């Protein structure tokens, strides 16, 4: 809702902001769940599932908060299961199809590095719920970042084959990275109101971490990609999200209102 001054009202801005963060966490959590029984070893099935579970937990809290603030009274389930593609506000990075394990670790390294800075900053959010979610989640994503860092080190500084594939993965992820750190109307309004933080302000520390890991892994951080993903925050998505939503939503939509 646009107020008289043409700016997003505070509660609406915070709601929209929570939705962006919640959608990133939800969609990536769903993607990571796809690894169960597909990871290179059973410990990794469990690790990726646990990381996905943390993200779904964060998404539940963030979507609940968005529904409380936006005046529609929608629950976390309404938001997760009964919105269509155009109404999801996640970045393209998290919706890309599952690929090889190297790609997943490159994606996780960037996403967790971003989330670590994000939640560390949001601990002092003026929205008490958001601050509480952040204080809890910051410890979780620190663990995710460490997990991805260790795998990138192991694969980059491993065999010539693992090195080649890890390098390739970094390059495939690169075009999707910048979108995470772009300021849009929602994050600017949320940041002005004190509830949010400008994504662009997270770049230095997040990319600093990734770059240190990449160098130690004997890999090379790709130069800025020739193209960049954009549009996710406005609900303009890439092809894979449709398939992801179909799988995630079909039971809830086939049996609306069903409970355990």
């Amino acid at each position: 809702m646009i107020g008289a001054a043409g700016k997003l009202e505070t509660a609406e801005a915070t709601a929209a902001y929570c939705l962006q963060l919640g959608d990133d966490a939800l969609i990536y959590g769903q993607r990571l769940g796809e690894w169960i029984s597909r990871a290179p070893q059973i410990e990794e099935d469990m690790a990726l599932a646990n990381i996905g579970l943390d993200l779904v937990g964060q998404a539940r809290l963030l979507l609940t908060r968005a529904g409380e603030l936006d005046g529609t009274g929608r629950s976390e389930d309404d938001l997760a299961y009964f919105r269509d593609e155009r109404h999801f506000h996640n970045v393209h990075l998290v919706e890309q199809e599952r690929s090889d394990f190297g790609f997943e670790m490159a994606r996780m390294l960037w996403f967790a590095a971003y989330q670590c800075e994000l939640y560390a900053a949001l601990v002092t959010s003026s929205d008490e719920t958001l601050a509480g979610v952040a204080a809890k989640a910051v410890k979780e994503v620190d663990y995710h970042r460490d997990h991805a860092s260790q795998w990138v080190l192991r694969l980059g500084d491993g065999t010539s084959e693992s090195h080649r594939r890890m390098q390739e993965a970094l390059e495939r992820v690169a075009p999707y990275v910048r979108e995470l750190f772009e300021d849009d109307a929602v994050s600017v309004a949320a940041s002005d109101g004190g509830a949010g933080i400008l994504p662009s302000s997270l770049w230095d520390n997040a990319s600093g971490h990734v770059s240190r890991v990449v160098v130690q892994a004997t890999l090379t951080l790709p130069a800025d990609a020739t193209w960049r993903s954009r549009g996710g925050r406005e609900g303009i998505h890439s092809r894979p999200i449709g398939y992801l939503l179909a799988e995630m939503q079909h039971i809830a939509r086939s049996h609306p209102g069903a409970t355990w």
Partner: protein
Amino acid sequence: MDVRAAIAAVPDPEVPVLTIEDLGILRDVVVDEPARTVTVFVTPTYSGCPAMDAIRQHIEHVARRLGFAARVQTRLSPAWSTDWMSAAGRDKLREFGIAPPGQRSEVASQPVGLSLMARRVTCPLCGSDDTQEISRFGSTACKALRRCNECREPFDEFKTI
């Protein structure tokens, strides 16, 4: 039995030797004796911990048996830390074969991320310090999997957060 004590004795469904009080997730119990209601504040261990629903149901059940209607509220802040686990809880974990969490301050002082973790964790089965990590993620969100190089047994470690 006092309703407060009964609620404090509710076990964790995944680690049943621990009560929710041992675990440090029970933050407050407000009893309204005349109204026969009790408001219980709990803090989740991890945002996505699936045991929370089971714990909530168990609390309501225990209170109902004593004639109280329970309202369970989630309190996010301050965030739960393994430092809140009681000494009794740590001893129970060790006896159960799970290495208890370390102190958070020890973890925080170590460089994170750029070295394969080499923390000292004592084997809960034989007491040896010569143990290694198999997986940072174990059977539940709150545990990691390790192996003892002395007695050769695998064991769970309660992660320090």
